[in-house]
């Protein structure tokens, strides 16, 4: 469907500098009508800066941007909208309190300059777009009541309602199940046939490769790979993004005499997961692979007591752990490193030392009075042991990089000397170097006799760190594979999707 006239969007040597940091380094790129392009890169590679520059939120320090072959001097968000560039952010930027039709039509209606709500016209517009996309949704439903996939559809419809010619989708597949991704790809194909261009921006793009014509890879702000989609597969994409082969040495065989540590039997939480039974042995790293919505996070929270299961038992060293009580669970030696570090894991404005010590206040207090010296010494000790690069433990934890922040959360739990540590997405938002080091920490924990459960959608990570991997689908554990090189990533991915 590419046409021979001027490309929709052209970037020529686009550079963006913030003080000393170069976020984008002379990037060239073209997107044609009806074309889908993959923009791949790790966190911090400059992807989001590129989006901001494209939609006029930030101005490039150098280089130029052309819409329909016409160089733009200074792009404002309005210019970008007029040129048909629409972004669908990862959080969709919808209004949860408004109805489906309002969410779809509001931007387009605003663009007409109307002061009044033309209810009939707006509803009609929303209905048309929904029909074009081939979706039936209740126009009057409040968006907060919709599923994630439907919210994404509403966001796509909103872009289309504003006559989008280029839809930029930020991390479009992270929240979708396999089936939903398949439907999304179907939709993308139809949009392309309609002449709409799509730019996928993600660090996880293997899934969308099949609908893309073109792949661009960014690393440290610079374009490091560029070519037709057929030339890439998930391995080569990863290599291009990270700059190295991340083949890790999987853990050695588990000592067969290792005692059973955590025994979960028939754990069920209606609507989330059912009849989960598993055994974790001392020194074992157990992986849980599952798509978002498969129940993997609910299971982790249930084991840690943040959610209360309806049935089943959890035993640690043969003792029952009360369900739905995180304080009891942690008291008995279960720790949980949450998925969303920034909102669930860290106290961003508080000091690094306090972020580590938060679980140890009661242990370092007599009659409620803290022994501050012991508390800070212990925190400092953990900083050293996990080699956190922190100039000042009293500085706010927000000043640290993602990898170091994750180590702070790990240190918090390790200070409590848990028996079982549950890690949910341990390397999300962490740079490649730190990722390997975090995997090293996991191996070290296991070597010291802890039981570790790693939940992740990063299959190479699971294969590289776990003794065993459980596959979770629609709330049920459907499969179990041995780690340690027994299966390939493609094999595991197939088991997840089938």
């Amino acid at each position, binding site marked *: 469907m590419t046409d021979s006239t001027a490309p929709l969007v052209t970037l020529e040597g686009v550079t963006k500098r913030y003080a000393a940091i170069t976020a984008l380094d002379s990037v060239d790129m073209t997107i044609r009508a009806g074309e889908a392009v993959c923009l791949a890169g790790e966190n911090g590679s400059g992807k989001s800066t590129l989006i901001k520059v494209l939609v006029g939120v930030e101005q490039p320090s150098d280089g130029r941007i052309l819409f329909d072959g016409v160089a733009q001097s200074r792009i404002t968000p*309005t210019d970008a909208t007029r040129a048909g560039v629409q972004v669908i952010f990862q959080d969709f930027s919808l209004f949860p309190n408004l109805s489906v039709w309002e969410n779809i039509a509001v931007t387009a209606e605003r663009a007409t300059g109307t002061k009044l709500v033309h209810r009939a016209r707006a509803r009609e517009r929303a209905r048309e777009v929904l029909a074009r996309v*081939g979706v039936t949704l209740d126009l009057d439903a409040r968006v907060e009541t919709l599923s994630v996939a439907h919210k994404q559809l509403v966001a796509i419809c909103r872009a289309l309602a504003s006559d989008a010619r280029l839809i930029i989708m930020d991390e479009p597949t992270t929240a979708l199940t396999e089936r939903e991704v398949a439907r999304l790809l179907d939709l993308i194909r139809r949009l392309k046939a309609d002449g709409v261009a799509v730019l996928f921006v993600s660090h996880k793009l293997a899934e969308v490769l099949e609908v893309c014509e073109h792949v661009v890879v960014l690393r440290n702000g610079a374009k490091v790979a560029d070519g037709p989609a057929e030339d890439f597969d998930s391995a080569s994409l990863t290599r291009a993004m990270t700059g190295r082969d991340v083949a890790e040495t999987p853990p050695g065989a588990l000592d067969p005499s290792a005692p059973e540590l955590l025994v979960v039997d028939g754990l069920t939480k209606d609507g989330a997961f059912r009849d989960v039974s598993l055994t974790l042995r001392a020194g074992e790293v157990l992986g849980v692979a599952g798509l978002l919505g498969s129940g993997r996070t609910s299971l982790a929270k249930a084991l840690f007591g943040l959610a209360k299961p309806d049935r089943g038992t959890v035993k640690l060293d043969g003792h029952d752990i009360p369900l739905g009580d995180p304080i009891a669970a942690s008291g008995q030696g279960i720790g949980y490193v949450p998925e969303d570090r920034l909102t669930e894991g860290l106290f961003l404005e508080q000091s690094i030392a306090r972020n580590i010590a938060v679980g140890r206040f009661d242990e370092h207090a007599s009659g409620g009075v803290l022994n501050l010296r012991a508390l800070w010494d212990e925190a400092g000790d953990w900083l050293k042991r996990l080699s956190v690069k922190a100039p000042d433990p009293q500085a706010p934890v927000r000043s640290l990089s993602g990898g170091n922040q994750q180590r702070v959360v790990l240190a918090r739990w390790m200070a409590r000397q848990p028996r079982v540590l549950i890690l949910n997405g341990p390397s999300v938002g962490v740079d490649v170097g730190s990722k390997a080091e975090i995997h090293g920490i996991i191996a070290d924990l296991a070597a010291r006799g802890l039981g570790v459960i790693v939940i992740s959608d990063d299959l190479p990570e699971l294969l590289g760190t776990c003794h065993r991997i459980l596959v979770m689908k629609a709330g049920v554990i459907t499969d179990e594979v041995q780690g340690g090189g027994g299966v390939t990533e493609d094999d595991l991915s197939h088991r997840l999707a089938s």
Partner: protein
Amino acid sequence: MGFYPIAHGCKARAMKSFDWTRNEVLVFGVILAFCALAAASDPNFLSIPTLTDLMRNSIVLGIFAVGAMVVLVSGGIDVSFTAVAAFAMYATTVLLRDVAPEMGWPVAFLVAIAIGAALGAFNGVFIALFGLPTLIVTLGTLSLFRGALLTFIGTAQISNLPSGMRDFSRWMMLRGTDADGNFYSLHWAFVFLVVVVIFTWFILNRTMLGRAIYAIGGAPESARRIGIDVKKTQMFIYVYVGALAGLAGIMHGSLARISNPQDLVGLELSVIAAVVLGGARLTGGIGTLTGTLLGVALIVLVRNSLIVIGVPSVWQSVVIGALILLGTGLPAYQSLRAQRRAA
């Protein structure tokens, strides 16, 4: 070709659109129960005089509540509107008395509305332009406006109102005596409340501006991203609320036939209580005029007629406090449980 199946979840939700735990329904139920109890203990309760009393007492409170709701919907909170109203009322009275005593009531009303809007704009500058927390700003301006009024304009009550305001106070829509010989009357001021409600309803539901108010209350960052001018919208809100407060103030003074600069302040928490009872959420984005008016009706009933159902009137604020706890506690507890379940 619809390759997406009908969204079952949404369909199911749309079917049971009547939600018994909605605040509007709860408050309506309490009002009915209250009336039933009152009618049982006093057969005269269900009468035209009771109704017109309720309506008259809802006027000023109702206009305040409409304004307070708009602010809550936008994700803010305003506690300064009573001071704005007192300022507008008293300053207008003084101005008219000293400058143009013969002017008609429409002039007085316009002046008061303009003063209210100007004070609202003062709030708006700090909230919209500088992004200060709304509660803190309006707490500050509550003292500031009240203090400035009493320092610079005057402290003495004015009972000899300018003729315009006096004329307004005599302007009855209907008056009469019911079958039992009880006198009743309804002032035209009630129509102002109706107009304010309709006008606000129109703004909120039929203009892009109104939708923008809901949008910034629901998701401020998303609103910014789709190009809604959040600052301008907030500025409008605070000016509008100020203007409404000015109107409520001048009507209060006219109806009471006295302009007391120390009046009105202290009412703000009851008004917010009424709005919250009506289902508006402190977190923004949610709130209806129906709910707000029901909330006002309930508060007015409790304030005026508690004695009729056999509760001594000293219990008034205990009852209102308990209603607030119930009205906000039930939905809060439900969402807390839902959250814990879904976690």
